[in-house]
């Protein structure tokens, strides 16, 4: 069976795995954002907590992915939950550190002027600092997403869903004539997904960034 034949026969299966994969990525990113953005804001505003927060987020990124996936199995069982926990932690550092960098890059004059006009701390954050830091923060989210898409393939090794299962199936049936197709299909699927999401980010960036700072 050629790769083309494999694709035509299995595209619905690949599509389904791709959607699983995407789902895994989006949920993990959602959690990482919900945690990482506030952490980044705290780290920016509180100089005392900045280094511990950044070091903590960096710590997870240093851990081998297999270890991080596995450590949640005793608590969360086999399947998607440990994968989501691990991926969320992996996604944290780029989001946190880019939030800090982005907020720090907002011109002091702009901050002072906003204060001088009587914006409260919260108004300043919401109307001035976050919108101005947004391009940098978005870059962090984009980097995180790319990281998570690739690593999510390893989720299959701990019984998780997604395109990794196709690769793992191919590895197990090594020697079998169809094995390479499965591996190519899974790998290519991940690459395509990564490219698609990257394109989506270009669009999101355009739509969510003020013309004044483009």
């Amino acid at each position, binding site marked *: 069976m050629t790769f083309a034949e494999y694709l035509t026969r299995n595209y619905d299966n690949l599509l389904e795995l791709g959607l699983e994969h995407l789902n895994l990525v989006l949920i993990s990113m959602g959690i990482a954002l919900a945690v990482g953005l506030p952490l980044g804001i705290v780290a920016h505003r509180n100089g005392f907590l900045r280094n511990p927060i950044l070091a903590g987020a960096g710590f997870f990124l240093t851990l081998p992915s297999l270890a991080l996936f596995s450590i949640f199995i005793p608590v969360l069982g086999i399947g998607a939950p440990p994968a989501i926990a691990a991926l969320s932690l992996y996604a944290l550092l780029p989001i946190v550190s880019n939030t800090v960098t982005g907020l720090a890059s907002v011109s002091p004059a*702009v901050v002072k*002027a906003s204060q001088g006009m009587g914006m409260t701390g919260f108004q300043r954050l919401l*109307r001035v600092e976050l919108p101005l830091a947004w391009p940098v923060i978005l870059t962090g989210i984009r980097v995180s997403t790319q990281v998570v898409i690739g690593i999510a393939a390893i989720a299959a090794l701990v019984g998780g869903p997604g395109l990794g299962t196709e690769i793992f199936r191919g590895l197990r049936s090594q020697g079998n004539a169809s094995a390479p197709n499965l591996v190519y299909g899974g790998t290519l699927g991940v690459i395509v997904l990564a490219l698609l999401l990257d394109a989506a980010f270009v669009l999101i960036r355009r739509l969510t960034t003020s013309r*004044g700072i483009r």
Partner: protein
Amino acid sequence: MTTTETMAQPGPTAAGAKPMIELVGLTKRFPGTAEAAVDGLTLTVNEGEITVLVGPSGCGKTTSMELINRLIEPTSGQILIDGEDMTHTNPDELRRHIGYVIQETGLLPHRTIAQNVGTVPGLLGWDKARIAARVDELLEMVGMDPATYRGRYPKELSGGQRQRVGVARALAADPPVMLMDEPFGAIDPITRERLQNEFLRLQQQVRKTIIFVTHDIDEALKMGDRIAVLRNQSHIAQYDTPENLLTSPADDYVSDFIGAGASLKRLNLSRVRDIEMATDAPTASLSTPVAEVRAVLLASTWTSLLLLDATGRPARWVNSRDLARAEKGTALTELGLPVEAIVEPHATLADALDELIASNVGCTVVVDGTGAYQGVVDLETIMTVVRTVRDEYERFHLAQKLAQQPADGQVR
């Protein structure tokens, strides 16, 4: 320096002026520093006046200003605005009612010019239509066409335009008080001059109570109704009108700070409307028969005559030789020299002198707001002013020296 206290307390009050901002013993000590950054600043600012805080860098003038809108919280002391103690009110609320202009403009780069100008009204909860109308009015006021600039972003404007928007933004909610921290400091000299003049004209309309910080004594003399010369820790060396500062500086620190050429600087203070301009220059309408024009010129002590157009605006300078040619048939509009040196009454004598030197006639024509002829200023007029100032200054210095001699060993 006993002068500090005596000068600062009441301030040189003009008749009927009402104090708008009163700073009482304002002090700021930053944690971990031995010396206070601002030490017991006491100052009264009258309503509708521009008060300039001027001093060398590091003297605490910007800190003093930021204490007033409490971007920096004072360690001790009081801030009264319009008689009300502002020291313990909500600082955000306070700042919404104080216009604030800074050197770097601090325009929000992600928001349009209209959104920038409408920031404080928005914070105060005005409705959209009212904000939009106010924004247009303000842009008009600072000389920017609303239709053109409303939708632009700060990066699409020049430095001077940005600073105009900064001023418009500070005026947006019509605050009675404005703080301006070196607002024209980062702008090229030519544009700065223009913005200063425009701002002074604007101030004639809006009559805000303004505290203006600068390190440039010339700017201080030009902009200020009153000037506080500061030394270290915002100690007031002298708080006085520009004229008094020039003619009777309180001590060597002040006269050193003003620097040389005080009498020339005085030209920056005197405005054309305040001096006696010559009104005896011969004039005639362009439509007057040449013979009559000649008669007018001959009857005067002048060598040239100013031709005015139908609306009374200066058109050309002509002399008797030009008129002779006119009698041979050349049209009056093609004779003589065009009038290049023109100023309005609010121009300073320095402006008038500049124009005069650049012109080819040796005198500057003064016109009113509509451009109609008012009179002329010549070198003689200007020299008279310089001489008076110099005399006053020398007389003052002599008096000061005499007064200080016995005290030398004790105080200084």
